[in-house]
């Protein structure tokens, strides 16, 4: 199969040493895959480990066991075993992540935050900023805000900046954690359109959507993450 | 002269100083430590220069001593008398006749020859001392030829005054390797050190250091490409001999602001005056 991302036997157990070495298994033997141009929605009850899976896929959480194979520079690479510099390279070129909350960097304006992933790839400043402005405008963020650091922006505005940043770099694989949670209906539809365009250019999307209406608009397939019963 | 060894110092001390001098000549501009002796005059009066002179003096030598270019100041007169009495050698005020010239703060105007030696009295031998107070660190900087700091000093001069304001003890690079203080001679005299036919020896008594510039050695004043080194003199002619290319002293003539400029090198000035009179 020509997948963009595949997990094989992915497991994750958290060990909390400060609580007397409690072990909390969250993912057990997850086999999951997503193809180019496909959008898979992670479903399951709250606390089942959807966000944990998402963070494992990004390399933010280390995988306890199993493999996370991602198509990077034309070959399948095991993200679970990649050294930090390879993870950085994969994140720069192949794998994007729209988290629920924007991590604000002091004094950096919205446009520069959005342009940053492109700049990191070596896109000239002007082109990167033009693309950033275009996306921010499309997400209905007024031009007067583009230069301002978003620390004081509303939750919805910050999320739109996060989304613009995620879509700016045309990643082949894009992870989206509740991308429409704090958006109004108009902007929700903009996000739906952006996701459709990403799929059309062959990107693989993996998302968590609370909003089932949105989910059904964009997802080609559902993947259920089940809670592990025999905890600790 | 009884009761003294020739030229005051005992022979083993002279040998020790000569060894230091030989090493200094072998490593131009490098400060060589030596066992500086107590001399019958205070530090600051030329104890380093006197010990160097005593170590190289022979019975046939003719000694000239100048202080700020002048043969007749107390310091110059005393040192000449000292060596006349302790070594019985001949002394002179004429630059041309001298085989050894001990100096404080000047280089004679008349070009020196291969058969002459110029001995400088040095109060502070370390050119980096004011910028880097740690002696161990200054030695390391010399060892590594790590001299950026000296240019920082000149940079600061230009930044503050618009030009390099250092007018004496102007730092030089010797033989392209060692940074050296030329002793407090005016910067005007610096170019005379470069490729001088005479051997130049420097003695610092209190600091116990000897250094040397062998004949025909390159001595370059530090500068910037866009602020080149310029030897500075008062823009006047000597009141006595009319010279326009020698270093001048300013002399107050009364208490209402009267002043004249005269050659600092008294021998050179006297010679020129004699020539002028003979011509008239």
């Amino acid at each position, binding site marked *: 199969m020509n997948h963009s991302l595949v997990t094989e036997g992915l497991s994750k157990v958290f*060990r909390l040493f400060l609580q007397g070495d409690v072990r909390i298994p969250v993912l057990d033997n997850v086999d999951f895959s997503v193809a180019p141009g496909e959008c898979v929605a992670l479903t399951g009850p709250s606390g089942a480990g959807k966000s944990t899976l998402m963070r494992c896929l990004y390399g*933010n*959480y280390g995988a306890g066991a199993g493999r996370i194979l991602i198509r990077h520079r034309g070959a399948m690479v095991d993200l679970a075993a990649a050294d930090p510099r390879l993870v*950085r390279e994969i994140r720069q070129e192949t794998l994007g992540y729209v988290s629920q909350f924007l991590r604000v960097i002091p004094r950096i304006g919205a446009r520069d935050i959005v342009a940053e992933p492109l700049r990191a790839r070596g896109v000239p400043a002007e082109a990167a900023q033009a693309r950033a402005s275009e996306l921010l405008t499309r997400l209905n963020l007024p031009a007067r805000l583009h230069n301002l650091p978003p620390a004081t922006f509303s939750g919805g505005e910050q999320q739109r900046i996060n989304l613009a940043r995620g879509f700016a770099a045309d990643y082949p694989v894009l992870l989206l954690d509740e991308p429409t949670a704090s958006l109004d209906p108009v902007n929700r539809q903009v996000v739906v359109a952006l996701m459709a365009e990403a799929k059309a250019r062959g990107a693989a999307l993996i998302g968590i959507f609370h909003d089932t209406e949105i989910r059904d608009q964009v997802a080609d397939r559902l993947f259920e993450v089940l809670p592990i019963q025999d905890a600790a | 002269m009884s009761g003294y060894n020739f030229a005051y110092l005992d022979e083993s001390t002279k040998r020790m100083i000569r060894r230091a001098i030989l090493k200094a000549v072998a490593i131009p501009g490098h400060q060589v430590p030596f066992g500086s002796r107590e001399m019958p005059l205070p530090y600051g009066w030329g104890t380093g220069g006197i010990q160097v002179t005593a170590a190289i003096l022979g019975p046939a030598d003719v000694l000239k001593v100048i202080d700020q270019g002048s043969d007749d100041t107390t310091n110059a007169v005393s040192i000449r008398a000292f060596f006349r009495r302790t070594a019985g050698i001949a002394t002179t005020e004429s630059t041309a006749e001298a085989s050894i010239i001990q100096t404080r703060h000047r280089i004679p105007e008349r070009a020196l020859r291969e058969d002459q030696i110029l001995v400088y009295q040095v109060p502070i031998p370390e050119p980096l001392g004011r910028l880097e107070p740690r002696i161990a660190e200054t030695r390391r900087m010399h060892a*590594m030829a790590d001299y950026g700091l000296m*240019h*920082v000093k000149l*940079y600061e001069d230009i930044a503050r005054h618009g030009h390099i304001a250092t007018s004496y003890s102007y730092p030089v690079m010797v033989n392209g390797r060692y940074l050296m203080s030329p002793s407090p001679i005016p910067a005007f005299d610096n170019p005379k050190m470069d490729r001088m036919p005479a051997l130049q020896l420097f003695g610092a008594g209190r600091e116990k250091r000897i250094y040397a510039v062998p004949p025909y050695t390159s001595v370059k004043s530090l500068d*910037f*490409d866009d602020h080149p080194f310029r030897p500075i003199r008062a823009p006047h002619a000597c009141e006595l001999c009319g010279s326009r290319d020698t270093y001048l002293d300013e002399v107050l003539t009364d208490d209402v602001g009267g002043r004249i400029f005269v050659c600092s090198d008294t021998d050179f000035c006297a010679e020129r005056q004699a020539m002028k009179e003979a011509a008239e």
Partner: protein
Amino acid sequence: MNAPLLTARDLTLRFGRIAALDGVDLEIHPGEVVAIVGESGSGKTTLLRVLSGLMRPDGGEVSYLGQDVLGMSEAARRRLMRTEWGFVHQNPRDGLRMAVSAGGNIGERLMATGARHYGNIREQASHWLTRVEIDPARMDEVPAKFSGGMQQRLQIARTLVTLPKLVFMDEPTGGLDVSVQARLLDLIRALVADLGLAVLIVTHDIAAARLLAHRMLVMRHGVVVESGLTDRVLDDPQHPYTQLLVSSVLAA
């Protein structure tokens, strides 16, 4: 991928009965920012001093682009220190000449490497003052007149003027007010990204490490207990000490 700039293998150093470094391995690649975190006394500043050749370890190897750092002559090490390396001290007084003007401070490394054109040196000094957000009109003032934050920014300008490949930073925001720290961190972040510097930064400030570093080493009692991608070490810490360290700070 490309070869590491600096490699350290099995570094050990004891102060009497205390192990300051105990089998430390480390690599840093061009353009990589690596943070060494840990509480006071964990050995992180000692590690920085050993890696930069300021201190000899009891055992182990350090190499920079294939050169043996511990075996190199002092002349060679000093040459590196004023060209391809830089060191930013916690206290700007240790890294600046307090009696020399801001311009002279920046110009020193240039002059030490042969710059002899006053006008060009001034131009560079002015450019670097602007880059670290100090008004170039203050070029001729001595750093003693500057605030702590400005002094630290001046130290950074003085270090970066020769475009080093590798910069060692020892708690660069340590002595500063929180508001000033944020500005300095952001400035360092931007300069490091623009210039593609490799930086080895020692800090006990987890938030600073998250903002600046690509990769992180956690040290305790002279041992690297955990290392990896910065966000993974902070969000999914595997060692009890790292969990304690992360849980002791407010949302980093």
